[in-house]
């Protein structure tokens, strides 16, 4: 459905994206992960045909997104990373305008999306908070029921409740066969929706992996607080990877093998367990450590 083939674009100062290639199948939710400045937005600009690749091409359903302008956009919904609307518009007038540019969209669909995301479309856009603008942008990307939806950092600015609504929305559309590409700088944001993810760093794709594989290499830190010191000491000797400990608290690092951790922990009286997830860079590092060992 979406093919990015060897797309290269070098900016002055030798930053840019190099030989970026991946494909997204129909009905798949594809994550595009990378730290800030890694080239996610640049890649998305090429996918949307805003930039001309120095080398390579992007195709959506067989249309080249640089050459076949005017055709591929019918299939695509797009949420920009930085949302900028034209001045002097309300949410409603903006969505009306986008509908007319799209040649008309289902009013019921639009009303349903607005209701689920809970915002007042009559508010002037310049008075909207970041999260509210993000909601307007999400409606604009979804309302015409496109076959492919491209989302640049979709959940930024949304509160946890709205993030949940957004995830439900994505999963519903996925069930209908819609293809997604969404970028993010945090793994936890996409792991609930994505099937596969590409990881980009310094303009290069360093891995395209099934999300379960990435989950398996992701280390999680559990901070376990024991009721008494003796239990703690026994736990320390259980052979789990101990990150650190202090008083009755122990930080255990778990990678994939959750059963062993729960079995060990269930032997003792525990006051509380906190969870810390690893950030993206550490996941990459672990990924490479493991590749090296295998």
């Amino acid at each position, binding site marked *: 459905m979406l093919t990015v083939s060897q797309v290269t674009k070098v900016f002055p100062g030798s930053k840019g994206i190099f030989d970026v290639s991946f494909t997204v199948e129909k009905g798949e939710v594809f994550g595009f992960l990378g730290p800030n400045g890694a080239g996610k937005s640049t890649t998305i600009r090429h996918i949307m045909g805003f930039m001309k690749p120095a080398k390579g091409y992007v195709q959506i359903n067989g249309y080249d997104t640089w050459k076949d302008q005017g055709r591929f956009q019918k299939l695509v919904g797009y949420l920009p990373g930085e949302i*900028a609307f034209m001045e002097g518009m309300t949410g409603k007038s903006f969505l009306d305008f986008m509908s007319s540019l799209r040649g008309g969209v289902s009013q019921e669909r639009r009303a349903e999306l607005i209701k689920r995301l809970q915002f007042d479309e009559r508010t002037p856009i310049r008075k909207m908070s970041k999260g509210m603008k993000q909601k307007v942008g999400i409606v604009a990307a979804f309302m015409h029921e496109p076959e492919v939806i491209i989302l640049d950092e979709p959940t930024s600015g949304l509160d946890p409740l709205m993030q949940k609504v957004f995830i439900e929305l994505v999963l519903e559309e996925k069930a209908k066969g819609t293809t997604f590409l969404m970028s993010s700088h945090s793994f936890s944001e996409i792991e609930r929706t994505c099937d596969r993810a590409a990881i980009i760093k310094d303009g290069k794709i360093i891995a395209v992996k099934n999300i379960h594989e990435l989950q398996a290499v992701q280390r999680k830190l559990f901070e376990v607080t024991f009721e008494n010191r003796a239990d703690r000491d026994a736990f320390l000797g259980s052979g789990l990877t101990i990150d650190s400990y202090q008083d009755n608290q122990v930080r255990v690092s778990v990678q994939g093998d959750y059963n062993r951790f729960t079995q060990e922990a269930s032997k003792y009286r525990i006051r509380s367990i906190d969870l810390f997830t690893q950030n993206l860079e550490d996941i990459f590092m672990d990924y490479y450590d493991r590749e090296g060992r295998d």
Partner: protein
Amino acid sequence: MNMPLYGQMLKNHLRTMSSYAFGSAFYILLMFWIFPSMKTQSESLNALLGSMPEGLSKAFGLENGFGSVDGFISGEYYGLLFVLILSIFSIMTSTQLMARLVDQGSMAYLLSAPTTRIKVALTQALVLLTGLLLITAITTLAGYGGYAWFIGDLNEFDSSRFLLLNVGAFLLFFAVCGISFFISALCNDEKRALGASGVVVFGFFSLNLVGKISDQLSWMQHISLFSLFNPAGIVKGTVDWIPVVVILLAVGLAGFAAGIIVFRKRSLLL
């Protein structure tokens, strides 16, 4: 061209365009209103003009004197003020229609809709020209109205020459808009587009002015587009229209075409 985009853009810009148009209309009415009182003193004013260096009165289009209403309006209004108003309009509006949308990022929404960049750019160019036409048309109407209202005797008024004044101004600014549209289509940065257009348009304007004032520098006006609009000459009927029309239309069309092509071909940071 893209009708929904045209409608929306016209809506966004109609208020500013009307301000320019009604400002200009108001000013031309004012000129007609003060003309009768100027006419009673036209002899002394003409004597004053005679005492000024020839270049200066030519530069500001005053060589037709204050005796006839055509001469007065062509010199006082079309010679300077209307040209300034339209210069500002061309620079500001062309920048807002292209470079600002790219700079702000809202162009991303226009280009993610099923349309082509050529259509988007063409539509924006037409919005710009619609504004130019609106301002010139309202000024023309106000001119006729002002004459009928304040001067009255329509026999003396050469209405076709007055119309030609407006046609000449429109043609000049068709070319100027073409150039500033091209600059705007080329720029990622709104301020840079505004600055570059301003330098080019007011540069041409000044070349023309300086070339007219000084005999040694008269070559300067020949490289300025603004010398192709000669209000005093139009009123006297001494303008050779064919090269004027051909050059101005050609420059304008080339500017718009180049703007559209450059916008189609360049990478946008959206």
